[in-house]
């Protein structure tokens, strides 16, 4: 089975790095650079996994999208990885409270990213 992955990150260079990293695997990649677009794609594509930057423009941040996914019966199976530049314990705790499956702090290692994705998708 080929998994769909949505990469949501407003910083284009970092988004491209993530896309490049995940291209090594057998995934169909989608991208979004703001919260509302990400939420729209989540509903339309229903990917297996979403990488969500916490801080995004558009009035809908990573935490909120994560919570929307995890509280929607049709979408709650989607795995969510939160990406953040914030490493504080309170932010991590908040992310876990919103139901995220993993939490990566920038700058993250590409190997750490691949391992996390593979673990969550059981590939």
């Amino acid at each position, binding site marked *: 089975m080929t998994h769909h992955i949505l990469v949501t990150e407003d910083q284009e260079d970092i988004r491209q790095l993530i896309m490049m990293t995940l291209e090594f695997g057998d995934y169909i990649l989608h991208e979004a650079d703001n919260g509302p677009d990400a939420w729209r794609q989540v509903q339309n594509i229903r990917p297996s996994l979403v990488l969500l930057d916490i801080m*995004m423009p558009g009035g809908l941040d990573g935490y909120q999208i994560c919570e929307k996914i995890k509280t929607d019966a049709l979408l709650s199976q989607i795995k969510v990885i939160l990406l953040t530049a914030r490493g504080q314990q309170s932010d991590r705790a908040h992310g876990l409270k919103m139901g995220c499956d993993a939490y990566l702090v*920038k700058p*993250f290692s590409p190997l750490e990213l691949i391992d996390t994705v593979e673990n969550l998708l059981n590939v």
Partner: protein
Amino acid sequence: MVEPYKPNLTFLIFDSLSIPLIIFNVAGDISYANPAAVKIESEAVVKLKKSAQVQEIIKNVLMGKLDLPAKMDLTIDISKSKIISGTFVRGPTGVDVVFLPEESKNIGINQELSTENFQVDSTIKLIQQDLLPSVNHLSDQIVSFEEKSSRVEVTDFSGIQSAIQELRNRLNSLVDLTRVFGDELKVFNDLMIMPQIVDSVCIALKPLADKFQIQLTIDGVTRELPQIYGNLRLIYRAIYEVLHHTMLKSREGVLYKEWMQIKISLMTTGSFLNISIHNMGAVSRPNISRDTVGQNQSLSLISEKVQQTTRIGIPMARRIIELHGGTMKISADDLRGSFVLFELPTGAPVKPAAELSMLQAKAYAADMSKLFERMRKLKK
């Protein structure tokens, strides 16, 4: 009988300012120079101690021939044609006169203050208006305590404790104000859940609300409200100061028996989170009477308290909101009461994107060989 030592708290505050400030007494002598003045304008402090020019200026002020504030050039050293420019403003006691050297514009907090039309003389005015009532209140409490304790054994210290607490709050406001305008607290890293912050502020101000018979209501709190990123302590401070100000203002000229209502609303508009603090007026309309102030004994109690309305809090709150990329608007009319609106940008704060990209690139570079190794294995 020896008078107990009472430190002059206003001067303690002036001591903490980084703005040079020299105070002249009615005789034209220097009665006080703060450490910043001693450090930065040391020559002026020495030379102006007994200056005929200053004595003449003070005399003219006292005789009403010279209006304050007044910009002046003071001669420091005739032989070297050395002068110091500055502004004379009215002093903290009303009879003394403060001299603010112009050079102070180039240092510390004043640089920010002046760019924001927040002048030094307005700082002095704010300190006078904001702190002196608290200082006087504490002083009155101490005098009353001394008088009472000379007659009977006094065990109730609550009046003094409350006055000290009030003064401490005011001093904290001043310290925060100085820091905010001095850009010391530009840390925008906290995740802020506004309903929780608003709730905390309301809880903190609940005792005052009960005392003043003000009903605080919060409207629009939903889980859909976006998060804000910024300095949690400062945002709390801004909301606290504005709500506190609104509470005190709401009771001006209003009969004590009336319960007032202040509504705090939160809502999202586009990419902004709006927080409004609205003084709705009396809960049971329409018995608000501004004409009856002073006719009822209980009203004087209210008036005394209202005089303690903070003035430092409002410019500080505005500055805090501006530092977070937002705006603060205040409007008031007799029909709608007062209305304060905060607009705070939601979502990501301005991130140090270039720095983050650089760090991310370094992380990738460090693992690149392992990444290619893995890719080679996958291809096999």
